[in-house]
């Protein structure tokens, strides 16, 4: 897939909560083909404190409508500038970057998202749904306000919610929800995106159930194309760039993410 740099038009900008916006983008020319899990590096115009692009997962891609969505979490000046764009304005993106999730066929699958980690999971759920998979989505957040787009996700599968303060869904962390702790685990694949601690915990649970878990990492990066070597993650094959080797990894590939391989390695030594 050839990477491109494109000026896209902001078609709509919806505020989801106090620090998240959903941007809908379009283009007169056809958008490049994209797969779930890939990301875009977005140029920030008019920000004096930032210089680099910002990476965002492709939240949705609609080939027929030739539109795509990005879920923007406002953190610093750069992301705030992007989140404040008005419809009609232009946004410069480099895309599609990185590798996507494995798309299974006719399976029972579980998607787990924490906070803005739900960003790549809509596009993923949609593709999995189209391929005949039975999709369950487990969404976690600190509080009810952090649970975004649940109704959108409900169109694609069963949605389960946890909040740490119990203001929505089950009280606690995603790893405490009954759906991921069933003795007779119905899922043949787990996909996860969220904070590293959450992803590790989910990967451990999946490992315990002898099921593969694909995680989408969000390491700080500069270039997004494998040139700067800043976003590396330690894998069993050495340091690898999250931008070009990931951002989606099977958790078994990552050093320190699985119990089994760690034990095996230490026994070898």
């Amino acid at each position, binding site marked *: 897939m050839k990477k491109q740099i494109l000026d896209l038009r902001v078609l709509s900008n919806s505020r989801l909560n106090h620090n998240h916006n959903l941007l809908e983008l379009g283009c007169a020319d056809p958008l490049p083909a994209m797969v779930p899990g890939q990301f875009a590096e977005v140029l920030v115009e008019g920000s004096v404190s930032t*210089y*680099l*692009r910002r990476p965002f997962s492709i939240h949705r891609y609609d080939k027929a409508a030739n539109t795509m969505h990005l879920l923007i979490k406002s953190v610093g000046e750069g992301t705030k500038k992007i989140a404040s764009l008005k419809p009609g304005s232009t946004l410069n993106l480099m895309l599609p970057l990185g590798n996507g999730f494995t798309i299974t066929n006719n399976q029972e699958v579980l998607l787990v998202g924490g906070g803005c980690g739900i960003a790549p999971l809509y596009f993923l759920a949609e593709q999995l749904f189209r391929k005949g998979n039975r999709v369950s989505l487990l969404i976690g957040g600190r509080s009810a306000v952090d649970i975004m787009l649940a109704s959108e996700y409900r169109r694609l599968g069963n949605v389960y919610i946890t909040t740490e303060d119990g203001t929505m869904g089950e009280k606690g962390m995603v790893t405490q929800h009954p759906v991921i702790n069933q003795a007779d685990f119905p899922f043949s694949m787990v996909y996860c995106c969220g904070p590293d601690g959450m992803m590790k915990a989910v990967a451990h649970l999946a490992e315990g159930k002898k099921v593969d878990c694909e995680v989408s990492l969000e*390491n700080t990066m500069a270039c997004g*194309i*494998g040139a700067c070597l800043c976003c*590396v993650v330690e894998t069993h094959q050495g340091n690898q760039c999250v931008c070009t080797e990931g951002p989606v990894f099977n958790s078994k590939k990552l050093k320190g993410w699985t119990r089994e391989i760690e034990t095996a390695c230490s026994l070898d030594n």
Partner: protein
Amino acid sequence: MAKLEVNLHKLKLSNPVLTASGTFGYGEEFDDFIDVNSLGGIIVKATTSRHREGNPYPRMAETPMGMLNAVGLQNKGVDYFVEHIYPKLLKYNNCVIANVSDSTVEGYVEVAEKLNSLEHISAIELNISCPNVKEGGMAFGTSCPSATAVTRAVREVYDKTLIVKLSPNVTSIAEIALAVEAAGADAVSLINTLLGMAIDAERRKPVLSTITGGLSGPAIKPVALRMVWQVAKAVKIPVIGIGGISSAADAIEFMLAGASAIQVGTANFVDPAVTVKIIAGIKDYMQRHKIDDVNDLIGGLVL
């Protein structure tokens, strides 16, 4: 037709725009965005005598108009380079320059010797200025005797154009430049990154795993420009300007300060096509100022 060719010792560049080592991979990362052959040349990622995993993550911190990095020369070593990377570089017919680093003089010599026989590598850039390794790197570039020693040792085994990349983390960069010139360098390139630091106040922690790192990007341009000007006045060999160049105007400023060619670094991360835009912008500047030969810009600062 504007003449863009410049000479760096024996090298003939089709135009003065090069890429800075460590910001352009091995060229192929940029093939989707630009015709890499349209650049004056590329300086590929640093090669050391042995495989290096580099520093632990986090290796990057964004700072106002720039970034700190602490990559630490991650590469697979010179033998891997010769066997697996060099063949892929043969598709580029512009000037391909290797960047050489190590932790000992013997290591530098070993890499330079192995690269000397590669026909398609037309020059090496000796990196005596990397701030992100515990041993070697910048340590060689911050004193005249050690800069002299490593340059002289490599000069003995390397026949083609030898560029030495200087560290700005010194009291007098012109003195180091004079020292490497006397030791046999054919050109100097400057500046490498400035040693810097970032702190996350909320967590009371350094942002980088190595605590300190190398600052690059537009934030360092005024410092780089000053150093290029000082060095160009001091030495007779060609000077290559580096430091925050992200536009044709920046490139021209470095040439007016005395640089014969320039390297684009961090800007490649923001716009992978920036180098070709800089070449076009230089042509445009020459047309507007009725300059036929880009060499007329070198050291053309009016005082």
